[in-house]
């Protein structure tokens, strides 16, 4: 028995599997859980970080780490130095005519209208990911496709491995390509996952995508991919 007087409220962590009923696993599969984020912390020093904090990519675990300003500075400007933790830059570029053509997009065999492609330096190859109800789904690129695309779009050679992505949006209304920080792609996929409904994502997911690309067009500079990407201070 617990005495009621003066006893602070008690918060339970989510219970272990089995306690939530036999169908919990099916529920999770249909709709992966939304975790509350009451004040995110720096993954390196545990300091509380603002919403628009920076990220690092851990090349070993392929995880994104949230970092505070001082920790981000430690890793800024390192370039492709072969270290395990790499800062995500803050470069948003709309490729315009330099972007992928619909024919090239078809060659990638992506089943939905958007995907992001990035060079995984650990594996030494380019990965394509697209959003779905379970988050990012990885797609094997048909052999040689990426090499052909880079050969045709010299600008893509400047894509910083692991931390920058080519985000392609290809449907009846839009055919556009952007160079964006990779955390933006994972954030987008994470949002879509919580909204995803039915076979193709449904109306809420489409609305989110429309808003996302409106913001992206407003933010991105329209210029060829070249030169130094500024360090990241943007949205987390």
């Amino acid at each position, binding site marked *: *028995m*617990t*005495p*009621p*007087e*003066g*006893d*602070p*409220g*008690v*918060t*339970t*962590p*989510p*219970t272990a*599997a*089995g*306690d*939530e*009923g*036999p*169908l*919990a*696993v*099916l*529920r999770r*599969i*249909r709709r992966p*859980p*939304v*975790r*509350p984020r*009451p004040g995110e912390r720096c993954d390196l020093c545990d300091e509380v970080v603002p919403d628009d904090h920076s990220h690092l990519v851990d090349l070993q675990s392929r995880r994104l780490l949230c970092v505070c300003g001082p920790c981000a500075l430690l890793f800024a400007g390192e370039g492709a130095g072969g270290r395990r933790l790499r800062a995500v830059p803050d470069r948003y570029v709309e490729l315009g005519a330099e972007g992928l053509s619909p024919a090239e997009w078809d060659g990638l065999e992506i089943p939905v209208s958007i995907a992001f492609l990035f060079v995984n330096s650990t594996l030494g190859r380019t990965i394509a990911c697209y959003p*779905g*109800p*379970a988050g990012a*789904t*990885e797609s094997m690129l048909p052999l040689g496709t990426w090499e052909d695309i880079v050969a045709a779009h010299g600008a893509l050679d400047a894509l910083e491995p692991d931390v920058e992505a080519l985000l392609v949006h290809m449907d009846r209304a839009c055919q556009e390509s952007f160079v964006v920080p990779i955390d933006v792609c994972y954030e987008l996929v994470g949002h879509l996952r919580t909204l995803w409904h*039915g*076979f193709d994502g449904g109306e809420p997911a489409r609305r989110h995508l429309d808003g996302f690309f409106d913001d992206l067009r407003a933010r991105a500079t329209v210029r060829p991919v070249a030169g130094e990407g500024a360090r990241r201070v943007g949205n987390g």
Partner: protein
Amino acid sequence: MTGQGDLSDVGRRIEELLDLLGSMPDRRARQCAEELLRLVLDLYGAGLERVLELGCAEGAPGGPALLERLLDDELVSSLLLVSDLHPLGLRARVERVLAGVSAAIPDGDARLLELDEEHHMVRVRLLAPDGTVPEAMAARLRKLVEQAAPEIVAVEIDRPGTPVRLRRKEAVP
């Protein structure tokens, strides 16, 4: 037909198999399995929706009374949640659980104090007739809330300095 206990084993087994697939070098193994399950659930969900329409609509054989009985059943209720077919919203589901618990402890207190949808938390008052919060009772309530409202990740049981015990009986020896 299997009982609720056996069904928990089925749930655990599904999880084991998914983990096994997840540990395979090709990450697509688990993704494919999950997509398969989702598609099967979509088909079953569509069928279940038709069953509800045919059985529980106004003027249907069971009518709204049948729907009430189905919602009272933990298994059916969870199944409706899986398929997004549960007719009650989050607050109504939590309140329904608390009404049930409250009815089971006529001289105690069980009520919803706060529902924080943004942080997926609920705060409830729970008092046994003797003014205490027995751990078993709290655990049962948490389990019921988690089943009825899987969106909720934390159930906070409020234990104020001066508990509300308006209907409290005289102290039991």
